[in-house]
């Protein structure tokens, strides 16, 4: 899922300074699962916005709404049901949602309530870790299913580097050296020889270094 967390309240209060009424718009997708921007978090945020504005000697009305997702046109159109109820939308979706509203609604001002952080998962309640960086040219079949792009601090394709100590990365003793884990996992499948194969220099254009990416599926368009 896309993992995000709420921005500091000072930033959000600054965004809505001149608003009289805002629509706090939750997303029921990834950000609900990572407890950053679902309906419950939108309710909390609305309360904090009202309190923050009150403290600044201003008043603001908040309407709370939620969409199934904020990254598909058909759901974005549903914003019309709150017509007239807001000067601006404060979206608790990931950055995709905020961009989508901006793309599709030329008269709607939208502010991001979250810092969108990474693609990750939760192995432990209340904790999320980065697992994939969306590089567009997956190498997991060569690395025992563990991602060197997202999980190695240097995104090395031929690791580990000389800083790997006792399974930990040189950037911090709390951080796993994913290349050590790749080595151990390949060994457990009797595929250590894969470690000897030199990965070629990568073409990072699929990773966004060649500009914004786009996928077109002809079979799905009419």
């Amino acid at each position, binding site marked *: 899922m896309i993992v995000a967390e709420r921005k*500091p*309240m*000072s930033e959000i*209060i600054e965004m809505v300074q001149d608003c009289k009424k805002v629509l706090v718009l939750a997303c029921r997708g990834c950000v609900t699962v990572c407890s950053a921007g679902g309906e*419950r978090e939108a*309710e*909390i945020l609305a*309360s*904090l916005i*009202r*309190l*923050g504005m*009150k*403290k600044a*000697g201003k*008043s603001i009305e908040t309407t709370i709404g939620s969409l199934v997702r904020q990254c598909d046109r058909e759901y974005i159109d549903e914003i019309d049901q709150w017509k007239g109820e807001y000067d601006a939308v404060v979206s608790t979706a990931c950055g995709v949602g905020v961009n989508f509203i901006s793309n599709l609604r030329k008269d709607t001002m939208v502010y991001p309530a979250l810092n969108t952080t990474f693609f990750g998962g939760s192995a432990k309640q209340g904790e999320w870790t980065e697992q994939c960086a969306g590089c567009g040219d997956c190498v997991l079949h060569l690395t025992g299913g563990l991602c060197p792009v997202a999980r190695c601090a240097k995104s090395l394709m031929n690791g580990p580097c000389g800083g790997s100590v006792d399974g930990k990365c040189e950037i911090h003793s709390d951080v796993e050296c994913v290349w050590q884990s790749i080595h151990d996992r390949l060994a457990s499948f009797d595929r250590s020889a894969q470690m000897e194969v030199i990965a070629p220099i990568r073409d990072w254009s699929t990773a966004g270094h060649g500009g914004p990416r786009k996928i077109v599926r002809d079979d799905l368009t009419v």
Partner: protein
Amino acid sequence: MSFDPAITLFSCHYTSQQSCAEEGKELEQLGFPASINLVRVPCTGKVQVTTLLKAFEDGADGVYVVGCPEDGCHNVKGSVRAAKRVAAVRDALEELGVEGGRVQMYHLPRGLHPEFVEKGKEMDSRIREMGPSPFQN
């Protein structure tokens, strides 16, 4: 500057049952501050972040929660959950530039006992010292 604070207390059924003794008179006789408005909940684990924030929105100068001891909650983890939510509200208050001490969690044994009154007095004097809530305009 002296002022009369409004404090909201969310207390679980088990730790606040003394409040009902003799129609609440007993607490009053023990010196429980009149500034405290006691809201009884079946379990403090039911108290949401929004419940605590709403108390501030409704004009409370301070808000606190009294639940069972951490290792002796009637509903196993209710009071531990409540403590986490109180901590989240404290962080949020601080983000808004407000004293985090305006919200507090206490774990107390069940039934009638002096600490319930003591913690009420502690909260009352802390809020008096801090002054009125900055959320009132």
